Every structure is written in C-alpha cells, then in structure tokens.
C-alpha cells in the first residue's frame, strides 16, 4: 500500500519535473537566440547548445549596420511617449477621480469608448493625418499619436479613487488650490501606478513595429524593431548578426521588466477586472 507521505512526495516530484519542463519551453527560445548570437556565422545552424567557438562577429556586423543609431531612435521615442503620457494621464485621472465638474460621466464614458477602436482601423486615416501635418519621417509622427491612451487614464483614475478624501480636506483647510492638491498630495502618492504604467508604456513603445514602419521610411529614423525586421528576406545578413541585434533589442525591456515587474503584477491586480 502506498502511504500518503509517499504519495505526496511522488506528487511533488512530478510537479517539479513539470515546472522544469515548462521553464525549458518558455526560456529555451531566448537561450537559443543568445547562444546563436555568439557563434561564428558558419556555425549558427550547428544546433549546438554550447558554441564550439565563441565569436562576436555578429555584434560587429550589427554595429556596422548602424544598430546604435536605431537603438537611440527607439530610446528617444519610447522615453518621450512614456514621460509625456504619464503627465497627461495623471492630470486626466485626477480630474476624473476627484473633481466634480459638468459632463464628467459623459467624458469618462467617451474616453473608455475609444478603447474599442482597433489600431488597424484607424491606421490608414492616421497615416493621412500625420502626413498632412508634415510629420512623416520625423520623431513627431511616431511620438505624438502614441500618447493618448484611455487605458492609462482609466488606471490613474482607479488609483486616485483609492486615496482617502480626508487628505484633500486637510490640504484645502491649509489653503491649497485644487492644482496645489494635485501637485502636493496626489502626485507624490502616485509612485506605484506611475511605475506600473511606465513599465508598460516603455515596453509597448519600445516594441512597437507597425506604426513606426509606416511613418518613418527614411532609414536614419528607423527604430530597432523596423531595422531588425528588415533583415528578413535579405540573404546577405548573417543569422548570428540577426540574433545579436535581436538580443540587443530585448535587453532593455527584459532589464526593466526584471527590476520593476512587481509593479506590473500589482497593476494587473488593481486594474479592477478581477
């Protein structure tokens, strides 16, 4: 007869094996990318899990293709969108959560309704619009349309609703103006939500492909994702360089993700969809 202890022990062993196998499934593709990026191009497809020879020729090739410029473009665009969007959304979130103004319900529902508009539907008119502004082949064309985002406004509002109103009353008695309350009470308390949205906005814009592809066709304004995608179908690009460029493109988002993922998880929990 199998004792309960033995049964539970074999059960947890099965779970451990399962967990390890899942880790392999999720991580192996990334490992394959990193390993291939440090193989010489003649050995990229040798399927070895440890490179026979270590070579940085892939990275050198990627740098020769001006990878650092595309990296900089991505960094400028993703940082600008994130920074400006956070300021705007926190202002809107504060107004929607704490100010009692006419038309508030309508404004709030209108903002939420824009969530239903898929990007693929507005892509063409947006392109025409940005073109008429003279923003094709410029940072503006990528940055400005990416800023307004109902989701960010909604999450700031949800967060501000959890802050006790006693703080407002105290600040009002101390002679604070409504803007002063926002500036001195709400902004300093916004760290968790700001961090969470900063991670998501930065990663989303860093990873964005279709819109920068359409707007900036001039090579010196390419973002990393567009540059990497351009490697496909060209027979002259060595695969170790493709993997090297991909690894460089992934590093910032994985680094940010690792440092700040607890905010992301908190954000998921508080988004109120549970």
């Amino acid at each position, binding site marked *: 007869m199998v004792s309960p202890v033995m049964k539970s022990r074999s059960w947890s062993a099965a779970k451990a094996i399962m967990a390890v196998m899942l880790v392999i499934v999720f991580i192996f593709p990334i490992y394959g990318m990193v390993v291939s990026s440090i193989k010489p191009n003649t050995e990229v497809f040798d399927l070895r899990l440890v490179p026979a020879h270590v070579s940085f020729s892939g990275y050198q090739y990627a740098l020769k293709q001006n990878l650092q410029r595309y990296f900089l473009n991505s960094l400028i665009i993703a940082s600008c969108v994130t920074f400006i969007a956070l300021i705007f959304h926190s202002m809107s979130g504060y107004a929607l959560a704490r100010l009692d103004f006419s038309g508030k319900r309508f404004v709030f529902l209108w903002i939420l309704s824009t969530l239903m508009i898929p990007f*693929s539907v507005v892509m063409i008119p947006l392109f025409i*619009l940005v073109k008429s502004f003279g923003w094709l082949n410029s940072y503006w064309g990528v940055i400005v349309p990416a800023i307004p985002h109902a989701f960010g406004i909604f999450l700031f509002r949800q967060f501000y609703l959890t802050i006790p109103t006693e703080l407002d009353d105290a600040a009002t008695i101390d002679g604070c103006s409504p803007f002063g309350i926002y500036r001195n009470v709400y902004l300093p308390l916004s760290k968790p939500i700001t961090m969470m949205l900063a991670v998501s906005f930065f990663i989303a814009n860093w990873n964005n492909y279709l819109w920068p592809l359409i707007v900036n066709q001039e090579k010196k304004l390419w973002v990393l994702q567009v540059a990497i995608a351009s490697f*496909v179908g060209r027979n002259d690009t060595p695969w170790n360089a493709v993997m090297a460029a991909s690894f460089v493109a992934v590093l910032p988002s994985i680094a940010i993700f690792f440092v700040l993922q607890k905010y992301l998880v908190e954000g998921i929990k508080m988004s109120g969809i549970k």
Partner: protein
Amino acid sequence: MSSPKTSRIKKRRTNAFAYAMLAPDLIGLAVFLFFPIIMAFYVSLHEWDALSPMQFIGIENYLTILGDSDWWRSLGLSLSYSLLFVGLVFCGSLLLAVFLDSLKKSGEILRTVYFIPFSISTVVASMIWIFMYNDKTGYLNGFLRLVGLPGQGFLSSSSQALGSIAVSAAWTCIGYYAVLFLAAIKDIPPSYYEAAVLDGANKWTLFWNITFPLIKNVSVFVFIITTIGSFQVFDQVKVMTNGGPANSTNVSVFYIYRQCFEYMKLGYSSALAFVLFVIIFFVSVFQLKFTKADSVD
C-alpha cells in the same frame, strides 16, 4: 456663508480647472482616435490612390467587398487563427495559473520566468521563432530528429504556417494572462475549498465547481481581449511569412495593409478596415452576451 452666486462661480471655476487638466488627453484622443475613425468611414466612400484627388463613389467599395473572394478567404484565415490563438492562450494560461497556484511559494518565482517572453517584442519573437522553426537546421526539427520523429515544414508548409505563428504569438503572452488568472485564483477564500474537501470533493470537482465559476470575470476578460487581439494579428505575419506560403497566412489586417500600402487602394482598404471593425465589435458583443447568459449567479 456661501450664497448661490458664489457657489455658481465656484462650480464654473471647477469646470474650467477640470477641463484644463483633461485638455491634453481629450484633444489627443479626439484628433488621433476619434477623428480618424470618422475619417476612415469618409475615405471608404471614395476611390483614392493617395496621388490623384478623391472620387466619391458611395457604397461601391462595400459592394466590391461582397464579391471579393480573396477578402473572405483572408477573413476565414483570421477566424482559424483566432480559434487556434485564443484556444492556446486561454487554456494554456489557465492551466499554468492553476499549476503555479498549487506550487505555493516557488510558484511566485516561476511566475516571473514564464512572464519573461511578455517583454519581448513581436518582431524579435518572430525572429527567434523563424530560427526555431527553420526547416532543416532549426532547433525544433533538430529535437524531432533526436527523438526519431520526421522533420516538419512549420513556416514553409502552407498547412502548418498559421498554427506555427499562433504558437509563437501565444508564447509571448501566456505568462501575462497566467498572472491575471493567478491573481484571481489567489483571491478565493481557502475556506471554500476546505468545506468542499470535507464533503469528499476531488481536485477535478474543486476546479470545476469552485475555482472556475469564481474566476469567471477574468475568464470573460481574457476570452474577449485575446479574441480582439487575434483578429488584429499583423507583425508576426509580416515578419515571419509575409502572407505566404501560398497565401496561407494572408490574414485580414495583412490583406488590408497590402491593399493600402502595396496597391494604393486607400478607399477600398478603409472600407475593409471598417468592415473588420464592425465584425470585431459584434464578435465581442456576442461573446459578452453569451458568457453573461451562462452566468452562475
């Protein structure tokens, strides 16, 4: 003492302040989302190649769509893709969440590991998977040969390409949805389970009678969001297969993109985009109704 007059002035001040705070976002949403959707409809009533002036042709573009068999085929492909992707992500992330929950403390660390692919862009993920799927020299075929199975075409096979793309896309987001499910599962009071266990329930009945009904809101959310996302798949198709082989991955958004940026039919592609919007909208409404009607409470 505040008279009605001063309170009216106060109200007006609050209004002005509120709208000043909202202005940047409201203008942004109006200009870059709301106006374009109206404009999309306007352009869809015209014939336009972006160079010569627009020509009003009424609903002709919409009539063309009805007879455009390539479009209906691409919509069919989107539907197949949607079923594959939503099935994989929904079942995959729910199972993963239940598994992580059963691991207690170590589940927290593993959660981070499964979450990592979420930070990888669609382009890089596509690159990684092109490499993994490679016919002769990819790691996947290497593994299949190692265990004595025949190699597969994956992206180069017209019957496997769509599924291969769905797997690579699911890989990036299963961890994310698992975190959502896990948060909901952790919110269920343990006393519910304890009572059921005393009544002799096994793990299977615990899941179907307690866990699943109590995480219904998250399930509905994941179901709808992944469906909407699946109908909009583009990046992976553009990078991994460019619609091929033999148009087997020519999904709706890719078809629309081609009509616009390759054939310069701006009016027609706007009409297609509008039809897609209406389809996505009704699919979501249907899902919402369907899942509500089934409600336990």
